[in-house]
């Protein structure tokens, strides 16, 4: 049973965002980790680097495929989850909580308007499966 927590926003690139003021905590969704399968490698940016909305902020490898992680917001990365480096399996087992990846200090809160709420993301996932 896929998880779609209500307190998150979602991008069409299957990335979730938890907003706290101008801080955005970011990770990949339960749906994404399920589609990817076992994640074997992860490449995340350094703290203090800058990410742009709709640009890659990192990459993961699963089943010999490198998948770029697309940032849903722009801003400076103020924190990177070091625990994932020690236990990458967290991304598969707990993607919405301890499996978070980066925290971004957002430049423009209006970028959040492009994201989906839980219902919108659930509908998007269903539509995407129909197209597939």
């Amino acid at each position, binding site marked *: 049973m896929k998880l779609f927590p209500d307190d998150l926003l979602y991008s069409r*690139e299957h990335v979730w965002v938890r907003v706290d003021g101008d801080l955005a905590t970011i990770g990949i969704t339960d749906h994404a980790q399920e*589609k*990817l*399968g076992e994640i*074997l*490698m992860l*490449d995340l*940016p350094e703290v203090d680097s800058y990410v*742009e909305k709709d*640009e*890659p902020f*990192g*990459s993961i*490898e*699963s*089943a*010999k*495929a*490198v*998948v*770029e992680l*697309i940032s849903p917001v722009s801003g400076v990365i103020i924190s990177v989850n070091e625990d994932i480096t020690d236990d990458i399996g967290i991304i598969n087992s707990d993607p919405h909580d301890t499996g978070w990846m980066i925290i971004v200090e957002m430049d423009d809160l209006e970028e959040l308007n492009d994201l989906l709420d839980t219902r919108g993301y659930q509908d998007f996932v269903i539509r*995407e*499966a129909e*197209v*597939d």
Partner: protein
Amino acid sequence: MGAWRLLPFRKADAVENMAVDEAVFRANIRNKALPTLRFYGWRTPALSIGYFQDFAKEVDIGACRRLGIDMIRRPTGGKAVLHDQELTYAVIAGTDSPLFPPGIINTFRIIGSCIAKGLMEVGIRAEMRAEGRATPDEALGSSCFSSPSRYELLVGGRKICGAAQMRSHGVFLQHGALLMTFDPARTCTIVLPHRDREEQVRSLRNAVTSVGEQAGPPVDEETVCRALRKGFEQVLGIRLLEGVLTQEEEELKSELMTKKYGSENWTKEGCKSWISGL
């Protein structure tokens, strides 16, 4: 019947080959153009490693230099591959294409079916196993062809074609290496870690085969390209139209050759800073 673009077989060096694949991939993200099938070869032998591999741990740099083998990091996953007498393919398409069921593994499966169908045209009966080979052989080390990946193509239990992917913004790039001939001793010389050499060569020979070994009469790359083209057209129900790179792709290729694949930093360390602005 849908149309795809075919970029016909051409040999280039490692830097250009990787730059072309990624240029077509990046351009497709921007403009959602027709899917592309590309065939290519290697003007100079090259050892490629996967996006996440540790260059210092996987590559015997001194041996590569001594043997005149280029070294490069791929944009895709997987392990080390020695590209020499090889026919390489690349498929670039949208993940929303109705031809490809969702998921990474399904893309490997469908494209593997196209390759298998094509190989039958030259008398090679390759099979795909959902679970790959039973176990990896430790003696084989970090060579791609040692990996028991799902839906790899095997002939008599020996791997004949390896593949890897990258995905972003709803587009995938899958490239794969179809061996025309195979020299296990050469691979063992340049891929780390070095273990018992005789054992490594023996294990690799038992795990890997080639078109040259399996086809009845000798076949060249052009013949295999024609066969694979037929395989893709028949399995996918598409028409392949010969084309060339667009102006946008040529410009992206040049930029990628200079900033990424021609850079020692990318090959040895990997680097993501170059992505911004492309």
